[in-house]
């Protein structure tokens, strides 16, 4: 119920943002075009808005019936932290990839994540981090030779 309420609200918010700011300013206008360039994005936004509103309305009905509030105090913070950390890790990896070559830092990126996920056997960490990078290296050298990259 709560999840439907908040996600439905997010869908509505995005649709309203698209209809009131993104499309008028960035979808382009051409009075000569027989089909305006903003027609399809506008239809898509209306679909999102209507569906989001129905989802919110359904969730509100269920919340009222259950006499519950849309917010709750019992959030499992350790679980939320466990859920979020891989995103931050990948962001950090991307930051590193903008400064170093992937074949140079690929192995440490894999190795650290293996350790964070609980792997402690050194031979597994070494093998699992070096072999994929070596495969990528061989593949990229081959692709360079055939002129793809």
């Amino acid at each position: 119920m709560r999840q439907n309420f908040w996600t439905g609200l997010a869908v509505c918010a995005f649709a309203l943002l698209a209809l009131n700011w993104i499309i008028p300013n960035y979808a382009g206008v051409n009075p000569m075009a027989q089909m305006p360039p903003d027609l399809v994005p506008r239809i898509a936004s209306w679909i999102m808005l209507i569906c989001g509103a129905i989802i919110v309305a359904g969730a509100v009905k269920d919340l009222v019936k259950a006499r519950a509030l849309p917010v709750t105090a019992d959030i499992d913070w350790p679980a939320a932290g466990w859920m979020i950390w891989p995103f931050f890790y990948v962001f950090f990896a991307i930051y590193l990839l903008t400064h170093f070559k992937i074949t140079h830092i690929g192995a440490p990126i894999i190795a650290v994540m293996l350790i964070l996920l609980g792997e402690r056997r050194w031979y597994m960490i070494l093998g699992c981090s070096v072999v994929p990078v070596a495969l990528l290296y061989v593949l990229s050298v081959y692709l360079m030779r055939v002129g793809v990259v």
Partner: protein
Amino acid sequence: MNMDFVAGAIGEALSISSLIGIGGGVLLGYIIGVIPGLNRSVAIAIAIPLTFYMSPFIAISFLIGLSKGTAAGSAVSAILLNAPGEASSAATCLDGYPLARQGRPRTALKVGLFASVLGDILATTILIFVAIPFARVALMFGPYEMAAILAFALVFIAGLSSGSLFKGLAAGGLGIFLGTIGLDAQTGLPRMTFGYTELMDGMPLIAVAIGTLALSEMFVQSERLRYERDSMSVKLDNSDKDKLGWKEFLTTVPSIFRGTAVGTVVGALPGLGPSVGSFMSYGMAKKASKTPERFGKGAPEGIAASESADNAVIPAALIPLFGLGIPGNVSAALLVGAFAIHGITVGPLLLRDEPELLYSIFAGMIVASLIMLVLGWFGLRIFAQITRVPPHIVIPIVIFFCLSGIMLQGYGPFGLIVLVAFALVGFVMKRYDYSFVTFLVAFIITPMLELNLRQSIILSRGDPMVLMNRPIAVFFIVCTIIALVMLAWRTMKKGKPVAGADPAA
């Protein structure tokens, strides 16, 4: 059917380079399918960058081989681990795991393998004989019909692929919205590019697909690691009682034929997926059996029923793709992207413009099925070992390949940011039951939908009465409205329209 094309196609499919490409795809698919948590669409999304340097025929055959391999491989983990490699093999667990626990894992695996291969070959044959006449009819369709059919397919997929039609449609709306980013085809105006030249060609499809399917799935898997870590796999040994006899195999044949028929029908309909097919086939086999009480306790017919239907769905899902250009599930949608990378428009035009390629793909699919049989037969013991690879080893490696797949294509930091953004979108959709399948299919078919809509508006000069001369278009518009009303009614009444629908594969 032009016999010159057929002969040429068979020759091409049997060339060394094709056999290596197709065999590589099936082997990779088998390995990925065996690992629980990695599914068909994840495999295809990660593998698309690898097909960049292949010829169009080998690239598509490689991806179809990969898809077939994952379907067969997922049965191995379902039987030995009681953890299906993908959702569509969940029905295989019901009898596969009990049979393996009774000391007959090899028998269970062989029944699964034969059912997979037979279901696959029979459904591929049906595809060949249905898709070509279908495409011939579809070539007569104009933009009105195509726009109506695409709208119908989207509503159908949205209604059947998630718990709620409205969540499915909201996801589809987002997919359409993001699919319009880039230069407008008619006016040349940049749409929603926010001044970024990288967005002029639209959102990079590969980054969107890998992010939504593969990277987000790794985030889901890593979240699950907190609660479930280890699993025990049944070991293969050389017991005398663990042999599949001819007599025992014959008892599974009716289930295989029934499963193939069910899988073909389910696969040809957009929105339904292999999970629906395999469970439906399992239920029908149980109903038809004289000893239904054996089901769920290790009946080989149960394994045969679910595996044949699961594998029959893959070629059958290509009927609307080759016939109409409509992807009925995510795997087919990714194939549209793979075709586009090689500059080919998939659909009925493929039959007119590149018939040699189409026949070669069909021949490659049959070859892939036979390679699957050989690999499955001789690689049983090795694949059984792969089921022991724990998920915490798989996750960092797959994440690395997701990042390197984008880097290999030269997207750079922009592509990586798009990748992570869509991984976040995919993660949220999976977690809160918004259909990522509808999102991705909508994103991929939006250019086609918009083109047909634009042509319809220009040809009709905005007069809807033109549709009166277009009965097929009117039929699909009426079907769309009826489907919308019925699915909305069902969502409001029950909450979940079709239990187990999973067109993700």
